[in-house]
Each structure stands twice: as structure tokens, then as C-alpha cells.
């Protein structure tokens, strides 16, 4: 299919701040729409990740089974994969729980010991995904092509990266953590 490229954005274990930053691109989003079709995104109503995506921006760390499965599916179906923001690149705030030990212990503390009077662990197999032992950055589970640090990355940085990658050029270097 000549013409428009397929763009996807994915939200794993993060605060959605990176997507907010993406929306900060304001009117340039109209220019972006001329370059690419947004085929999958938390801000678009698409239930399944489609095949043959040219570029996927992934926000968030890999914290649970659902993230892991989605990350692998996205990698499999995307030509170019970008870890967008510190959570995807380093684990960041999402990974702070790694210092506190196994997730079982953590859930117990949060939902039972410090929870409300009913104090039960959330359990809904098939609906609530199980937590992984450790939160890991995206590149720990799938190969990543480009990294865009920042918490969140500033809108102009996202634009510079998109402009370069959508035109087939190498992305600009730099960007800082935090």
C-alpha cells in the first residue's frame, strides 16, 4: 500500500503522561494525520493490534502478563519499535516496586493490610492480569529500535522523532532522562 504509513501508540505500565505529551503537539497532529494513519492507540477505538504497522511508539514499563503479551505482539507486528518515555526505557517510577519485593507481598500490603474493611485481594482471572515478578523496561522483553527518554518526553522531541522516522531518516540523538 503506497502512501500513508501505519502508526500505532501503545500504553503499557505508565501514567499516560507520554501520550499527554503526544497530544501536546496540538495542530501538528493534523500534519501527522496527513503522514500516517493512527491504526492503534489508547486514544483511538481499536480493540486489536493490526498487522503490518510501520511505526509503534510504546509508553510504559512491562509490569504484568498483559503488558508482556502485548509488547511481544506489537514487536511482532511492527517494523520499527520505539520505547517512548522513561518507563519504557528504564522502568522508571513503575519499577519502583521492584525494591519492595515480590508482588504477592505487595498486593497483600496494599489491599489487605492497608486496604478498606473488606480487605480482599483483587482476583478476576482473564480480566485482571497477573503481575510479573519484576517490572522491566521494554528492551528486556523485546528488541527495541529507538529510545526516547524523558518523563515525559517533551512534545517537540516526540515530533522530531516522528518526523525523522516517518521520513525514513535516523532519529535525532540526545534527550535526557527525567
Amino acid at each position, binding site marked *: 500500500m503506497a502512501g500513508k504509513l501505519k502508526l500505532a501508540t501503545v500504553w503499557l505500565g505508565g501514567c499516560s503522561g507520554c501520550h499527554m505529551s503526544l497530544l501536546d503537539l496540538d495542530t501538528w497532529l493534523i500534519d501527522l494525520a496527513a503522514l500516517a494513519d493512527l491504526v492503534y492507540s489508547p486514544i483511538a477505538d481499536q480493540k486489536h493490534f493490526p498487522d503490518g504497522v510501520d511505526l509503534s511508539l510504546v509508553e510504559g514499563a512491562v509490569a504484568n*502478563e498483559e503488558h*508482556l503479551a502485548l509488547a*511481544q505482539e506489537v514487536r511482532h507486528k511492527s517494523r520499527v519499535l520505539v520505547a517512548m518515555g522513561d518507563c519504557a526505557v528504564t522502568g522508571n517510577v513503575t519499577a519502583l516496586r521492584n525494591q519492595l519485593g*515480590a508482588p504477592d507481598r505487595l498486593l497483600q500490603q496494599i489491599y489487605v493490610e492497608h486496604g478498606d474493611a473488606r480487605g480482599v485481594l483483587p482476583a478476576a482471572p482473564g480480566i485482571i492480569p497477573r*503481575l510479573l*515478578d519484576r517490572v*522491566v523496561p521494554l528492551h*528486556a*522483553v*523485546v528488541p527495541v529500535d529507538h529510545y526516547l527518554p524523558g518523563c515525559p518526553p517533551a512534545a517537540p522531541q516526540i515530533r522530531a522523532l516522528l518526523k525523522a522516522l516517518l521520513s525514513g531518516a535516523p532519529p535525532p540523538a540526545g534527550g535526557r532522562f527525567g
Partner: protein
Amino acid sequence: MDLAELNAIAAHERASRKPIRIACCTSLGCYASGAVELQQQLTAGVAATGRAENVEVVGVGCMGFCGHGPLVRIEPEDLLFEHVRPEQAPAIIAALDGGPCDVERGDPRHPFFARQLPIVRRNGGVIDPERIEAYIAAGGYATLYRVLHDVSPAEVIDQITRSGLRGRGGAGYPTGLKWATVAKSPGERKFVVCNGDEGDPGAFMDRSILESDPHLVLEGMAIAAYAVGAHEGYLYVRGEYPLAIQRLTRAISQARRHGLSGSQIFETAFDFKVEVRVGAGAFVCGEETALIASIEGRRGQPRPRPPYPAERGLWGCPTLINNVETFANIVPIIERGADWYASIGTARSKGTKVFALTGKIRNTGLIEVPMGITLREIIEDLGGGTPDGTPVKAVQTGGPSGGCIPASLFDTPVDYESLAAAGSIMGSGGMVVMDAGTNMVEIARFYMAFCMDESCGKCVPCRVGTVQMHHLLDKLVNGQATSEDLVQLEALCQIVREMSLCGLGQSAPNPVLSTLRYFRDEYAALLNAPSAAAPQPTD
């Protein structure tokens, strides 16, 4: 003290010897398996059987055949008994009359003994290390006397240089050159330091020398001090060697009492005062700049060189640091001459080297062999191969800074250059023998765990790099590693080697590099995991 007195002590000591001598090894290995009680039982038995007139029981230093201890030797018949238990004392005494004796007999002409060339260990297993008179009777301190009266410091250094002696701590720096540098370094105050912080896994050469012949080291240090113009010395011994520390401390006070240490030694203008400093359990304190910091009372961690200690060492003064075995070589060299010493060994590695044979080897123990002997001769002839006769797979030399040499290279001669070319180092003398059942990746992980635990934490590559390498080796051993992990491990080896501050970090990758070089198939066989392995969900 003068020469006449020294000779009188020696003569008296020799005259008071009894015709029959039961020598009982009291070095740490035998000590730990009951040698002290055995010695008491032998002494009591000799008295009880009314033989005290012509039989003496003497505690001696290490005989070397540690795996067969406690050892007892009867002279002049040259009977050797092995694995002797205290309750067997009467049987040994009975054997003096040629009576039947069911105590396990050893062969003093076994290749383990016959193939050795004892120079620094010549008094080991022979003299009582707790009595200075025994050392003097064996010719001790006569060399120091001669040096102080008849030899100039420059001549001493010349002898050491011409002998070809190289540092026995492992790196093999020419000893004479080091001495000359310290001698020429300007400074009113200089120090001589003996590095007894031996810490390689499986190494106990220095411990044995210090336990068996402490005065030999002290005399060597005194000669060194005279040669370089120092008047103060420190013996830095690791805290895990209580018997060595005890015997050294005793030896120093005996030497001081006899005017062989302290002020105006042998009634000359030469003063030399020695003190023992006990390490507190840090392997890195074997590195000379860390050792200096530790003696000074500071945190034992290395600093970048230059300046080298020969120029700026202890308290900023020129300092000569040599290893225990290096100092133990000094007296024999001066005594018998540089040419004699240089006639032993190979073109570039002179003299002998003490090795501690451990691991999957029949004859565990301590040996002193001439440089140039092959690994095969050591392992097969002296060591007797593996206990169950299966083939030897490899030998690890040089401790955590060294490497594993495969059996296919066992014809490599033991010298500094050949071992380095084989991907290992001479090191201080630990030799750990491995059989076919040994997993070489696990061996690499063991040494990496050692380096990781012993890293002082000062420089980033060693502090964190060793942990990351250990993590990757752990993944390998557990079958969780990918081919990317192996690539990363090799990259880390390079980074840690090039970027670390001291020898500990710079050589920490060696066990990995050498096992990768010779046993890469074992690494490859462990790469079971698919690429970019996913973390497992919790249950």
C-alpha cells in the same frame, strides 16, 4: 651478638641433639587434624618407655604432604608415617625398635618428595620453627652477619639482580630492579614491607613458609633493608593465619632478644625494627597500595599507580614491598651466590617456585619445584593425577587473577611467560586441579563471585562490572542465558579489564576469558534459552 656467639648457639644446639629424632609436623593442616595432641602423646610415650635419653620429639614445620597429615618422620632411619592419630603414638615408638607397626607408612622417596628442589622450604619439616636456636643451627643469620660486615648494599642488590629472582607474589617483577629503585629513591626514611596477605583460593604457600621458617623471612627482610637503606619493616599477614602470626611474633621477639633485630644488629651501625600487622579479611589488601593504606590505619583500598611504592609508599616514603616467598629466597641466594641461583630454572624465570596442589589431585600438598618443570610433571608425577585415576581436565593457576589451562597444554613449562601465553599467570602458586566432572562455567562463576565479594568498591568497573558478570554467569549456569548474554559477558570482560583501577579488577575477567578460550563449547551448551527471554509471571 657477634659471630662467635652465633656459632656457639649453633654448636650448642647441635650438641644437644639426641641420636633419634621423631619429627612431628605442626603446621596448620596437621595441627588441625590433631598434630598437637599427637606430639604430646609421643613425648609422653618416649618418657614413659624410658627413652628420653636418646630420643627427642620435635614439632617441625610443614613437610608438604598435607593431604596425608598428620605426618611423623623418624630420623636417622627416615621412616615416614601418614594420617597418624594420637592413639597411635605407642605404635610409632615401638617401631623405633623395628617392632611391628600398623601405622600407615609413607615413602620418603616418593616422586612427590624426590622431584622437589627445596630452597625456600629447605627447613620446612626439618627444624622447630618456634626456636631461633634451631634456625641458627641450620646456618641461620650467618648470611646476615656476612652481609653486614663484608658486603656493600650495592653488591647485595647486584647479587639479587644477577640471580634473576622475580617477584613471587605473582606479577614476576624483577626483584633486583625493585630493590635498586628503592635504594635510589631519595628519602631519609624508607620501609621494607613483607606481603603475607596471601588470599587466592587454594593457596597456602606463604602461610606454610611463615609457619615453618619465620626467621628465614625475617633474615631476608633484614638483608633487603640493609640493601635499600631502610630501618623499619612491616610484615603484613592476613588475620586468618593465626599460627603464622603467633610464630612470627615469637620469632621477632627471639631475634630482638638475640640482637638480630632492632638496634645495632651484629654490633654494626645497622638498625632494623620489624613489626607484624594483621589484616582484617580483605583480599584486596594483598594489592600493594591497599596494603600500605591498611598499615597506615586507613581503609584498605588501592590507589592508582604511579607513583609506585618504591618512590612513594608507606607514609609517603620509599617502600620496598615483596612477597613472603621472595624474601625467603634472599638468604639462599646471598649464601650460595647469584650464579648458583641463576643456574636453576629457565632463561627468564630463575630458581624455584612453591605451589599448593589442591582440587581433584591424589597428592594434595605443598611442593617446591624448579622453574621450567612442566605442568604435566607437577600434576602427574608429583601430584599423582586424580584420586580415582580419571583424566585431569584442567588446572587453574594464579587464583582469581589467573586462568584455567586445559590438559592439552600440560606440556607447558612453568615459567612466567609461558603461563601468560597460555592465558593464565604464574600467580602466587595456587594450583587447583579439575577432573572431567568439573563444569568450567561454574568454575568461572566461582571465581567471579570471589572477585565480586572482594572488590573494594572504589572504582566503578570492578565494583559493578563484577556483579553484572556474575549475574550473566549465573544465568548461564542456570540455563537461562541467551546468546546476547554471552556477547555482553565478553564485552564486560574487556571493559572491566581495561577500565579497572587495580590488579584485582583488571584481572577479574581472566577466569572467564581463559575458560571461554579453551572450553567455549561448555558455554555454548548452556545457551538453551530463546532470544530475549521473557520474565515469568508470578503464581
